[in-house]
Structures are given as C-alpha cells and as structure tokens.
C-alpha cells in the first residue's frame, strides 16, 4: 500500500541484523580481553529473541485455545488472539508503564503479510477463482470504490452537520482518505473467519477473492487522497487530479502488480524445471521468488498483494509438476506454518496495539457513524452489484448469499497498518481515525466473527464439505463438461468457457512445454491423477494396517505407471513389483530409482495421451493467430474418425443387416450420408485455416463425388475398420460381414523394447515404414487413402500458398526446426498432392533414410503419413512417434 516508510523498516531490520552478527565477531576478535567466562549479552540478542518469544507465546496460546474444542468451535481463533493480545498488552502496560510492542506497519507489510498472501494465492482453487473472476473483480473494484466514497462522504456530512466533536479537524479529503482505508475488506481477517465457517466454495471464493484483489484499489485511493491531504485543502481543484489520471494510475498499479507477479511466476516455474539435481533447495526457490516478487512490486509502489497472489496462483501448476513429492510436502507445510504464525502474530499484536491509549482519541459520533456506514454501504453495494451480476451468472447469488457477503466484509490489520502510517502533521484527526479503525477492526473481527457462524447456520447457507476426490466424480464431471459443450453447440450459443478453453490450449502447447520438465509434461492426465492418488492413499492405509493380505485385493493395481517413474519413490512401484502380494517392505522403496528407463518406457505408452478436452466453441480465427492447431487438430481428427466409425457401424448394424442384398441405390445414399457430415467439419477446418470459401466448396464437391464413385470400397473399408476395432476392443460385433484381412496392430511391447525416443530416429523411421508396407494390404491402404486424404486434403489443399498452415497441420515435428522445415516443405506437399505415390515413397524411404539431417527430419513425417493412412488402431504409435521426435 502507500508504504512510504517500507524501506525504513528494511534498514532497521538490516541494522538489527548487523548488530546481531557484529557483536559475536567483535567478541571473538583478538582485541577482546576474556575476563569472564559468561557474559550477559541481552542487548545483542534482544531483537531476535523478542521475536522468537512472541511467536512462541502466540503458538503456545494456540495450543491452549485448542485444548477445548468447545471454545474454538464457537469463538474464532482470531477473536481469541485479539483478546489475548489485549491481555498481554495490558500486562506490559502495567509493568513497563508504557505501551510497547506495537504492530508496526513496516513489519506488517514486509514480513507478516506476504506469507499469508502467498499461502492464499498458492493454494487458491484456480478453476473456481477464474470461473468467478467477473464477480470477484466487480466486487473488488466497483464495491471498494463505492464503499470508500460513500463512507467518506457520509462521514463528512456527519461532520458538517456538527454531530462530531469539534476536535475532529478534518475536511472532505481527510474523510475520503479515511474512507479509502477503512472500506477495504481485509484478506487476513476474512480468511481467518471464513476458514472456520465453511460456507460453500463459490461464496467463499467471492468474498476472499474480493479481499485479495481490492488491494490495488485501496492502494490507489489511499495514495491519491493522501497526496490531496498533504497538498492541503486550499490547493485542490477538481482539475488537479482528473479522472483519467486516477484511472490510469489504478490500471498501472493493478495491472503492473499482476504483471510483476506473472513475471516471477514464470521465472519460478522455469527455475524449478532445472532443479532436478538439487532437490533440497526446491522449496527455497518457491519462497524466495515469491517474496522477491512482493518486494519488487512494493519497491515500484505497485500492488504487492496482487503480485504475490498471481505469482502463487500461476506458478503452482508448473512448480508442483516440477518439484519432487517431498519438496511439494515441504512447500505446503512451510507455507502453512508461516502463514498461520503470521496470522497469529498479526491478531495478537492488533490486541496489544489497541492498549496504547496515547494514540487514540475517542469520538462517539465518529465511531458509531463509521460502524453504521460501513455496514450499510457494504450491504447496499453488495445488493446493487449482485443485482447486476445475477443477470450474467449461471447460478445467481441469492438473498442469503448476499447477506453473508455483506456481513462477511471484515476489516483487519491492513486498515490498521494504513491508519498508523498516516502523518499526524498532515492529517490532524489521525488520533480519532486510529481509535475508530481499532474499534471497527475489533468490531468486525470479534462481533461479526463471532456471529457469522450462527448466522450461517441459521440462514441455512449451503456449506461446503471437504471430501477426497473420487474417481467417479472426476470421470462424471468430465462427461458433464462434454455434454455441456455438445448442448451449447446444438443450441448454437457460445459458452463462457471459451476463454478458459483457449487458455488451456495455449498453456498446453507452449507454457507447459516450456515450464515443465519433459517427464512431468508427459504425465498429465486428470483422471489418471485422481486414480493414482487414490491408489497411493489405499497403499498407505494398507501399510498402516500392517500389510494384512485381506485388503490386498483392493490394491491389485495392474501395471500402475505413475509420476513415480520420474520422481524417486513410490509405493505403487512396489505394488507392481509384487503384484497383489503383500510384500510392502518399506526398505524397497528407495531402490526403485534405478529402473527409471524401464519406467519411462511404460509411462510413455500409457500417459502420453490424455483426456480429450471439451470443446466449447470454434471461431474462424481461433487458431490462426497464436495457437497453431496441430495438437488440437490431432485430437479433433481422432475423435472425428472414431465418431464416424461408430456412426457407420450403427448404420451398418441397423440398415445393412435388415436388407442384406446390396442395392446400388442404397449404397449411394449411404455414400452421400457419409459424405454429408464430413462436409461440415471440412468447412470448419477450412475456416480455421483461413482458406477462401470457394476453394473449400470445390474440395467438398470433389470429396463427395469421390465418395460416391468409390461407394463400394468405401463401405467395405468401413466395415473392415469397424471390425478391426471391435476385435481390438473385444466388443461384440458383426464379424462375419467382412472377410477381409485384418490388421494386427504392432505390439507395443516391441516398441517398448526399442525405447523409441532414445533410439536413433533414422532407425525408427525405417522400422516404421517397412512395417507399414508389410502389413497393410494395398486395397486397404487405398481405402484409407481415400477417406483420410479426403479429410486432410480439405484442410490443406495443395499449393504453396498454404505452406505454413499445411506444415503445421501435418507435422508438429518440424516446428522445432523451422529452418529445416522450409527445405522439407515441397516434398511434403507433394505427398499430399499425390497420395498414391506414398506407398512407394514409403518403401524408398527405408533406403534413403540415413542420408542426412534433413532426411532424418523427414522420416517421422513420412511415418506420420503412413500411420495415419494405415489404421486407426495404430494411432497410439502415430502419436508416439511425434513424441519421439520431440524428445
């Protein structure tokens, strides 16, 4: 916040540190004569010792509070701490005759606040947060502005009406300044109270998110009014500080703070990517960089809270993926410990500071007026904003939610620290403001904190219930996502998940690639994650039970590849080793590491692919600007093919079986039917690639005519493909329909042995192409050529103009080597133009493969072609080879 004196504190601390360190050095120096064995050195250790003592007292007090479950279930911990602080402050006052140990603003902003904010940012449920970001931002910005101005003006009105003590020397600007600092909802207080109340997630995230994000508004308002007050009322004209300056300053502070946070999140993620060999300092980086982000933002007077919050939110995903399991636990616990002790100290010191009566001057009208106004305006603001927001929200916030939100607007230490920072020379009524702030903070934390729980119970607010994620929930929620996406498509209305989707694509393509370890990046799959965690939990409980065999049945985890392959330890590895046996010797755990490569091989085949992402929406320009479509494209094509196959399968089973005689007319009709749905995606693909529309329609026509001509083959091919898939899945199907040679997909074990990504790429390509030509019969290949190339050629018509997109579409491989890509280009497009030559070139490929680097680059590409043509059941390998060349 407008912490001008922030650096002062740093200097103080630095001085204290220097003092502390210098003293022993001086002692041990040769100059110091050792006349006594023991010496009382209180002065040297005083500062750190006091800090330690306070923390100890606060922590011990916490233990005492929690001895009685009854007390803590009724009274929030923050209240108890404040009361304790009041008591301790009273004792100190009585003993020392003067109030010591205040909550110093600098100490608060530099040391106590950052851990809490980092903790809340890092453990923020990001999906929930970003789903509600609109509401959160509205309340944080509009709400805080409204509260500040309304409270300030109303108090000024009260003052003008002569209701206040004449000693309160304050003008409009003073009251607006006071309003700006008193109206911001405080993250520390909100967190402390709401964590114990357990309201539902949405409500919590809105109130809490607001309290974090309103920091920027508070900073700007506080600064602006502070400068006004310092200028003096006489010099202020409306034109001095025009609105646009205020706005730009607001955007600078908030967006700047966010940018600093993002920058450091990026750095942090990048750094943790390379800590593989120094696991032990991984947690240090997390704390260090987050803290530096805070200090950096503070230094250039941007919103430091925003910086740390966004640093925490954004880095988590990558950091968690990069660091080891142990470091993850360390980060989690250290962060919680730091945040919890900071919170404890803040509340205790709030209590202690309140005892210092020299700072305050009481004015009943001001205190009561402020209390009344902040409650009133908060409620009014919430109701008005919710009214507007509900028009846009899927699930509107109802009356009860609004009551809780209004009532949950707690003020806390931030307001207190800010009011202490005021300059008494400039702000004449500072003492009054301090007293009022203390009362307001105490009132909100103690009275509202005490009553909010009964209120929530009484109003029957939907509570959140914490439970472990289950596989069912994960799975079905994914299904829900797909369902909603489909329904939105059918309705033709575009959902608000559009941006999220877009972001996810971007993240997956670039950020994750850049910021995650390769091993970590491969392994991302949500359902699998949950499955894995559940199994770990089971395994641990299994061990805890002493490894009795009776629960081993539950633990039959068939070939459970997991994150463990890249991190060091795992119970599941053991389980795999021992099958469902009960050999869970903990000693074995640490020896697993040596089998990394084998693990990698297994993992590679398992988790490379992940769940299909739900698609909400397409736009013509969707992929053109910055998200290149290959990854997405592949998924789309894959799903598309599967869907088409299924459709034709059902068609076949319903119609084909009914009338067994193949009438030509019927087949033609079928051909058309097959063609028609494929046109639409073709059109959209074309749109995505930004092709001229007429070209598309031409392609479409040729496509459909082709399909009609090739009716018979097309159908036979489909039957075969279906058949083959059915065989693969061992699902019941019509096996007698097509007596065609069926393809046995190359066994994955073979590839596993090869460890493809470690082997030579040229070898790999040879292997692929020769196998392809061996297995696939010519007619089958032709059929595939027809169907697949019809799809592909639509998306990428021949011609040099469409070069870049073309390249991207077909071969993600080449993106990493743009210079070689340009050389490969012509050859590649010729592949598309003359698909019939491919099988030949595939054969010749094996001869020419080890020629040079460019050729080697080409190999995977050809392989891709071949694989794509071959059969859908070979898809995994297709993907695999792309992967291989990435690695």
């Amino acid at each position, binding site marked *: 916040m407008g912490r001008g004196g922030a650096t002062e504190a740093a200097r103080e601390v630095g001085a204290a540190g220097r003092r502390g360190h210098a003293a022993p050095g001086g002692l041990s120096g040769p100059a110091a004569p050792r006349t006594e064995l023991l010496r009382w050195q209180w002065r040297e250790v005083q500062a750190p010792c006091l800090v330690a003592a306070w923390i100890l007292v606060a922590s011990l007090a916490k233990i005492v509070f929690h001895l009685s479950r009854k007390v803590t279930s009724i009274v929030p911990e923050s209240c108890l701490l404040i009361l304790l602080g009041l008591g301790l402050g009273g004792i100190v006052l009585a003993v020392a005759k003067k109030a010591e140990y205040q909550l110093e603003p600098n100490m608060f902003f530099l040391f106590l606040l950052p851990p809490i904010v980092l903790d809340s940012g890092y453990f923020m449920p990001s999906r929930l947060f970003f789903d509600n970001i609109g509401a959160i931002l509205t309340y944080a910005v509009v709400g805080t502005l409204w509260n500040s101005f309304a409270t300030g003006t109303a108090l000024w009105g009260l003052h003008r009406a002569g209701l206040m003590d004449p000693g309160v020397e304050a003008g409009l600007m003073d009251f607006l300044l006071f309003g700006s600092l008193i109206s911001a909802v405080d993250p520390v207080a909100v967190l402390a109270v709401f964590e114990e109340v357990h309201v539902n997630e949405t409500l919590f995230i809105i109130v809490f998110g607001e309290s974090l994000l309103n920091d920027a508004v508070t900073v700007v308002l506080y600064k602006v009014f502070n400068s006004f007050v310092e200028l003096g009322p006489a010099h202020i004209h409306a034109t001095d500080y025009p609105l646009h300056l205020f706005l730009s300053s607001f955007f600078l502070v908030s967006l700047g703070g966010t940018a600093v946070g993002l920058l450091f999140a990026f750095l942090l993620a990048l750094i943790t990517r390379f800590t593989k060999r120094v696991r032990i300092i991984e947690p240090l980086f997390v704390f260090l960089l987050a803290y530096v982000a805070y200090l950096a933002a503070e230094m250039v007077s941007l919103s430091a809270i925003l910086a740390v919050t966004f640093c925490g939110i954004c880095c988590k995903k990558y950091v968690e993926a990069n660091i080891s399991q142990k470091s993850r636990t360390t980060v989690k616990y250290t962060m919680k410990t730091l945040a919890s002790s900071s919170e404890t100290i803040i509340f205790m010191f709030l209590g202690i500071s309140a005892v210092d009566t020299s700072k305050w001057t009481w004015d009943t009208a001001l205190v009561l007026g402020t209390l009344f106004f902040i409650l009133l305006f908060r409620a009014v603001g919430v109701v008005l904003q919710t009214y507007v927001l509900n028009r846009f929200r*899927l*699930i509107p916030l*109802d009356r009860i939610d609004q009551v809780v939100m209004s009532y949950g607007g707690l003020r806390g230490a931030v307001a207190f620290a800010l009011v202490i920072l005021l300059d008494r020379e400039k702000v004449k009524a500072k003492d009054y403001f301090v007293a009022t702030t203390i009362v307001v903070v105490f009132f909100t934390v103690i009275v509202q904190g005490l009553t909010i729980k009964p209120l929530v119970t009484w109003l029957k607010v939907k509570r959140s*219930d914490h*439970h472990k994620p*289950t*596989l*069912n*929930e994960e*799975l*079905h929620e*994914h*299904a*829900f996502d*797909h*369902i*909603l996406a*489909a*329904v939105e*498509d*059918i*309705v*033709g*209305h575009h*959902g*608000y998940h559009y941006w999220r989707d877009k972001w996810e694509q971007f993240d997956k393509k670039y950020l994750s690639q850049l910021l995650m370890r390769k091993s970590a990046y491969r392994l991302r*799959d949500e*359902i*699998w994650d949950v*499955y894995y965690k559940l199994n770990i939990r089971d395994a641990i409980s299994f061990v805890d039970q002493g490894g009795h065999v009776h629960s081993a049945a*539950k633990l039959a*985890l*068939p*070939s459970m590849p997991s994150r463990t392959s890249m991190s060091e330890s795992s119970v599941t590895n053991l389980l795999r080793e021992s099958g469902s046996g009960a050999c869970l010797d903990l000693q074995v755990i640490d020896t697993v590491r040596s089998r990394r490569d084998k693990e990698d091989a297994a993992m590679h*085949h*398992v988790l*490379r*692919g*992940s*769940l299909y992402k*739900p*698609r909400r*929406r397409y736009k013509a320009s969707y992929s053109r600007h910055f998200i290149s479509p290959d990854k997405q494209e592949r*998924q*789309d*094509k894959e*799903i598309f093919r599967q*869907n*088409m196959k299924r*459709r034709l399968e059902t068609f076949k089973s319903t119609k084909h079986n009914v009338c067994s005689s193949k009438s030509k007319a019927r087949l033609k009709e079928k051909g058309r039917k097959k063609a028609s*749905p494929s046109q*639409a*995606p073709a*059109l*959209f693909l074309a749109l995505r690639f930004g092709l001229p529309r007429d070209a598309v329609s031409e392609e479409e026509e040729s496509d459909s005519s082709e399909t009609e001509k090739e009716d018979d083959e097309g159908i036979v091919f489909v039957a075969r493909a279906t058949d083959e898939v059915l065989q693969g*899945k061992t699902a019941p199907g019509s096996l007698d329909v097509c007596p065609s040679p069926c393809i046995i997909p190359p066994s*994955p074990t073979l590839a596993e042995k090869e460890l493809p990504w470690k082997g030579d790429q040229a070898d790999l390509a040879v292997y692929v192409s020769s196998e392809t030509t061996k297995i696939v019969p010519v007619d089958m290949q032709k059929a595939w050529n027809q169907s697949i190339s019809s799809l592909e050629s639509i998306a990428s018509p021949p011609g040099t103009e469409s070069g870049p997109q073309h390249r991207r579409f077909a071969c993600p491989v080449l993106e990493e080597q743009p210079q070689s890509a340009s050389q490969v280009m012509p050859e590649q497009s010729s592949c598309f133009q003359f698909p019939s030559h491919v099988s030949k070139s595939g054969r010749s490929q094996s001869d020419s493969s080890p020629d040079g680097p460019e050729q080697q680059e080409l190999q995977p590409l050809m392989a891709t072609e071949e694989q794509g043509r071959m059969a*859908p059941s070979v898809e995994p390998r297709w*993907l*695999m080879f792309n992967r291989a060349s990435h690695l």
Partner: protein
Amino acid sequence: MGSRASTLLRDEEIEEIKKETGFSHSQITRLYSRFTSLDKGENGTLSREDFQRIPELAINPLGDRIINAFFPEGEDQVNFRGFMRTLAHFRPIEDNEKSKDQNGPEPLNSRSNKLHFAFRLYDLDKDDKISRDELLQVLRMMVGVNISDEQLGSIADRTIQEADQDGDSAISFAEFVKVLEKVDVEQKMSIRFLH
C-alpha cells in the same frame, strides 16, 4: 429467419412448451429459429443427420451419445417439442423454482433429471445399470488413444468398486446419484440460455 420462426410457431404451442419446459417466450422463439436452421429437410423435425451436421459435435467424444439422447426410443425424428424437452434438462434452476410446490410434476431441470440424463448416456442397454462394459465404452471415448485397455480396465474397475454398494459390479442409478451427491450438479449440468 427470426420472423419466419415466430410465424410458424403458434402461440398456444409456445404456451404449452413454456409450461412443460420452463423456458421463457423469447428463449423459445430463439431456440425455434435455431431449430429451423438445423432442420435442413424443412419438415419440422430433426433427424440424426441434422445434428451430425453440426461441426463441433463431430469432434465431441460423446457427441453421438448426446445426439441419441435427443431421440425418443426407436424413433429417427425429433420435433420441436422433444428438442425443447431435452434442452430443458440444462436450464439452470432458478430461485422461484426451488420453493415451488412439490406435488406438481418434477421439472425437467431438476437435479435428479439432470443426473438421469447423464446416466442414460452411459446406460446403453437401458437396464438402469452401468455395467463394466458400458463404462469402458464411455471411458474409451473420453480418453485419448494412448491409454491402454488394461489401464482403462483398472480405472473402470476402480470406478465401479467405488460406487457399487450392492455388490452387483454395476452402477445403478441410485448408486450413481449417491456417488455424485457432493457434486454441484445444478451448476455443472446447466448452461446459460440467452434470453
């Protein structure tokens, strides 16, 4: 398109649909114009092909299952009423509906109906149970091709084991509801229809 839509839709029809589905007048006309634009055959009904023509659905892994859900059993066509009836499952639950009298017919967008819609997507043979095979099929659709059948099988086993209460190695609707009782289905199975 809009004017044509409203002329074709009679007021009493709108009233009936409104009553049945809870959509507002403007939502119904809006969706009707969507309906007619999907209806390439212009015979007042949608066929499977009409749905399949929507490009995004072709790449939705559950697309076909969802299309099927629009069609009453054994039929190939769905009229506007049926179309709206299915869409009504996804209408968010509004405030005034929560307090509505309980004796009336359950609204289509109730929690249980939303869940039932999802359940039917799994339950192909309509025996009110999700068997392992049915679950596997859906899993196969939803995950990439890279996860092996064996792993899918273990996921399916685990899923069933988690939900199964009566030990029949299948998930009944009751078990399905039970296992999702902590999920905010009202929100996660609702979309915002434009007014």
